[in-house]
């Protein structure tokens, strides 16, 4: 199992903020089956201080994940929550926004640059939007979701991987966090897109027009 690429970027940004002296601790969180521990170990090897694994074998949709993260935030009281903008399996792009709403915190999504001002307790975030770049000031604590161009995540070095083995990963369950996991959405099916049909060779322009008119109905 490998870490969601946007999550790697989120973790990298958090580590840089800590290394700059703006944060005391970076906590990596993962919600899912036992394989999540591998991903958390990678995160610890990159530099996170401790990990939290909320173990479950069910497939949770973004709202449930957001509720779990909110419960954790209530317990841990972070100053900033970083998430990848979306997961590459479901491409939902919802969790970060939902966490912010549940917590009542400001949010800055698709971040391509994050600048912290500790004195004013504000983060200035450049966001990548369709029209270009939008710059927002968000009061801390806030939720930031990361986009591709924010940073280049570091490799976990072998000595760090070895050290990470002794960093703590706390195991929790959904019951511990008292979260209602009933989902209002049910995935009915997932299908592949239709296979591209091969082209047909035509022998003359007339035949082409005939096909376009009578078969494809585009003329």
């Amino acid at each position: 199992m490998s870490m969601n690429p946007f999550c790697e970027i989120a973790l990298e940004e958090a580590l840089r903020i800590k290394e700059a002296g703006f944060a005391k601790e970076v906590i990596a969180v993962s919600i899912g089956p036992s394989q999540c521990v591998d991903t958390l170990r990678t995160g610890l090897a990159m530099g996170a201080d401790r990990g939290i694994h909320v173990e479950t074998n069910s497939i949770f949709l973004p709202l449930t994940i957001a509720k779990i993260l909110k419960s954790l935030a209530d317990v841990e009281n972070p100053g900033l929550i970083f998430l990848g903008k979306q997961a590459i399996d479901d491409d939902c792009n919802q969790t970060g926004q939902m966490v912010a709403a549940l917590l009542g915190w400001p949010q800055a999504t698709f971040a391509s640059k994050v600048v912290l001002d500790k004195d004013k307790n504000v983060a200035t975030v450049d966001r990548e939007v369709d029209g270009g770049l939008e710059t927002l000031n968000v009061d801390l604590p806030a939720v930031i979701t990361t986009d591709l161009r924010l940073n280049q995540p570091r490799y976990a070095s072998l000595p760090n991987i070895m050290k990470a083995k002794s960093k703590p990963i706390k195991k929790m369950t959904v019951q511990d966090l008292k979260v209602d996991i009933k989902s209002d959405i049910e995935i009915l099916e997932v299908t592949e897109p239709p296979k591209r049909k091969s082209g047909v060779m035509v022998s003359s322009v007339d035949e082409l027009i005939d096909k376009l008119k009578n078969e494809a109905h585009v003329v």
Partner: protein
Amino acid sequence: MHRFLVKLSSSSSPFSNQLRSLKNQRLILPLLPSSKPFTSSSVSPPPSPLNASNRFGYPYSADLFRNLSPLNPNSRILGVNGITSSRCISSEAVRESIEYDVLIVGAGPAGLSAAIRLKQLSQEKNIDLSVCVVEKGAEVGGHIISGNVFEPLALDELLPHWRQEHAPIEIPASSDKFWFLTKDRAFSLPSPFDNKGNYVISLSQLVRWLGGKAEELGTEIYPGFSASEVLFDASDKVVGIATKDMGISKDGSKKENFQPGVDIKGRVTLFAEGCRGSLSERIIKKYKLREEVNAQHQTYALGIKEVWEIDESKHNPGEVIHTLGWPLDPKTYGGSFLYHMNDRQVALGLVVALNYHNPFLNPYEEFQKLKHHPAIKGILEGGTVLQYGARTLNEGGFQSIPYPVFPGGAIIGCSAGFLNVPKIKGTHTAMKSGMLAAEAAFGALHEGLNMNTYWDNLRDSWVWKELYAARNYRPAFEYGLLPGLAISAMEHYVLKGKVPFTLKHGKADHEATDLARKWTPIVYPKPDGVLSFDVPTSLYRSNTNHDHDQPSHLRLRDPKIPEKVNFPEYAAPESRYCPARVYE
């Protein structure tokens, strides 16, 4: 980005006491507090008190630097192009160094069997032994590919209770079919194989399981780290390996996420890199290990494999089919295999010996042709391809085994070359060689014995007997397909290797390629997208994904040779012989 580098070494040295107190502290370079807003991209290293910084601009804490001794001013590294360079540590970044009792390069059947055996011995004799396995694949089992019809002989010795431990060995071989193919027909011949008692498996699943077993016993396995250099000490003894630097861009410059490699040292180092391992080849050359026992050169074959999911009605778990003949010509040694696994999957592949003469031969295209043969097509029709891959195998057998022990360690598995060619099986012998090397290493570390006991025990073992009996099959094919088959039949039914002579291999594979003007180009049919495919489609199914911004993995010793020799004389065979088309 700030970095601090600490020499983490557990060896007792005059400085270790001072280092020990530093080892467990978090060393932080204090940032000057500033009222300016901070951005991660505007960080520049603050001037450190004594301006001690290496040439990459990473500042050292002055106190730390004073306490470090140079790693070893005399340590030499056998670099990529074979030029030894003496490394003066103080002028470069100090690489972290980690030490183990035994270091194993490669988490394949040989490497993991060695690790398991070492940990078993250390438990039996109550002596603690630190064992580290480095593996270049992103996960254990990720770089392993093989047919595979598995003979559990070595596994029975290593882990006798594997049947109760959920080993992914479930489908017993149920039949052995052997076909001689012509363009349109398949003739059933008496099978030279006897796979009763063997299992049709996925070797990567078995390796993953072995990795789990090794970790349970306390082995440290690090996937994602490839060994790029061998480390030597002043007396030319191997002391370990160095992992590759990561985060280098295509032009060789360091990227933002540059990470220097680390030195991993072992009191004994075992190389288990598989067929033609890069470091193993350098070791064999350096210590002249083939010359030492008058071994011949190694010869190779290329195996190209696909896993298909077929129609339930055509699936027969445990069925083992081998073919000879078409599409290969009588002068080219090779054949195909089709093994029925579980879950409606079959493993299908073509093996082509690399001493073929026709420079226009394209092993990948020959494999695509094979799939259109009526006998094979019938099985595949209605199915889908799941995966694709290719790997070289050893065909040298007994004649090509080098002396596998060198100062500081040994070579195990296919890196030395224990594949039984007529059986087309190398997994069981690789595992046994790993186990024997582990026993020798344990003896060398704790009982004052010599690593040479590995060689002695190898020659007393069933590996030697088996390879000796099988030694004349492959060389017989130098006389052609039919004489080869005749001699093979004689060997199989009558002689069983009990002849006083040993046939020799022909020329080295690369010397067997004929000049292009003696042959006409082969016209291969276009892929139909159902049974046969083009290379990009197949590559997609091999699940390889490389970051584009990295230096090329292939470095030419003389970049003019492709223009001056390959193209005019051999019609650029490199554009045909690679099943991943890496030569463009």
